[in-house]
């Protein structure tokens, strides 16, 4: 079936099978491999993208459900020369170890800050419950989010 949606400002019309996950379209069809698949059971949050500006797990959304929608992935928030404040904060605070969870962490963290729910350490930790870091690098991730919240 045909679906139309906008990803990182570019409109796409794609022919997808109904049983295709959004994350698979992003990665395999559109080549946006910055969005990761960590668990495939909707627990780890590595596949988090923004749908209409809100963080969602793209492994728990079908591509056909987002017909007409607007999606932002990690590739759409900044460039190497012009990082998003959240990316910059992750860099400054060394908020990544292996880096696998980082795209999802950043997409969740941006939504958290934009909703005004990143006021203190406790709310950041609670707000990132849907993202798992297997390196257990949470301490610096939380520091980075609090840091970015001051600048966004």
């Amino acid at each position, binding site marked *: 079936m045909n679906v139309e949606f906008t990803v990182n400002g570019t409109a796409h019309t794609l022919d997808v099978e*109904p049983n295709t996950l959004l994350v698979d379209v992003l990665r395999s069809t559109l080549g946006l491999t910055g969005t990761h698949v960590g668990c495939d059971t909707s*627990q780890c949050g590595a596949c988090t993208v923004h749908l209409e500006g809100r963080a*969602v797990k793209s492994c*728990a*959304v*079908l591509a*056909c*459900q987002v017909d007409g929608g607007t999606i932002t992935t990690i590739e759409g928030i900044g460039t190497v020369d012009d990082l998003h404040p959240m990316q910059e904060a992750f860099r400054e605070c060394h908020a990544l170890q292996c880096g696998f969870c980082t795209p999802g962490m950043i997409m969740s963290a941006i939504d958290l800050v934009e*909703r005004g729910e990143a006021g203190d350490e406790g709310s950041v930790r609670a707000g990132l419950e*849907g993202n798992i870091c297997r390196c257990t690098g949470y301490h610096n991730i939380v520091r980075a989010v609090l840091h970015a919240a001051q600048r966004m």
Partner: protein
Amino acid sequence: MYRFNYHRPTSLEEAEQRLDAGEDALFLAGGQTLIPTLNLRLASPSDLIDLAGIDGLSGIDVADEMVRVGAMTRHAEVAASADVQASLPVLADLAGQIGDAQVRNRGTLGGSVANSDPAADYPAAVVALDATVHTTRRTIPGAEFFLSLFETALQPGEIITAVEFRVPKRAAYQKFPNPASRYAVVGVLVAEFDDGVRVGITGAAACAYRSDDLETALNASLAPDAVDAVDIDYDRFNSDLHASAEYRANLVRVMARRAVEALLREG
């Protein structure tokens, strides 16, 4: 994921027709349970009928002594709603504790309630807040809605359109979340109405239910200590890798006590 047909009807009538026409069709709401289930090949419906294209199923209305939440309203909307926070804060608090932020951005009240997961949060509110479940065919009292494990009073093809919650004088919800999934190992909602106390329990048994024993004790004395004397019957409680039935019985007492304490702090 097995193959299926996908439909996005624009009216409830069309959705019901699609369900009837499908060999083994399922309704799709927020998909936060269903899509991972499909992804794990634990279900193989012939058709998915997405309810997201139907107008009028989403939104929150606050009237006298009543809060009505549309079936397709996302958990995040309920949690962040200034109206709900002002009129029925316990519901905003409960919605904000469901799953994680990403799940709350997609998951819906109707989907949660229709699924009747024994560890879901909303069912505790449906039974304790004297809710009325509105469907395409009738209204169902909240306390009669959940029948068993993943089983509700809904008939095949019947669609929830909204849930109306009665506003209590005071209420509080306390849960012991599974540390990984944030599902309730046990969740207890205590609500004080003019006509008595209602207690809704989720996580403990096959489905959410009202606790007659706790209600009797708290109607006699709305105090934390009143909970301690109640003998929680755990004969039909769930026993799994997360908690034994006996442990869940203890959690019911602890969460009920905390809920009463929180309720009393409201003044």
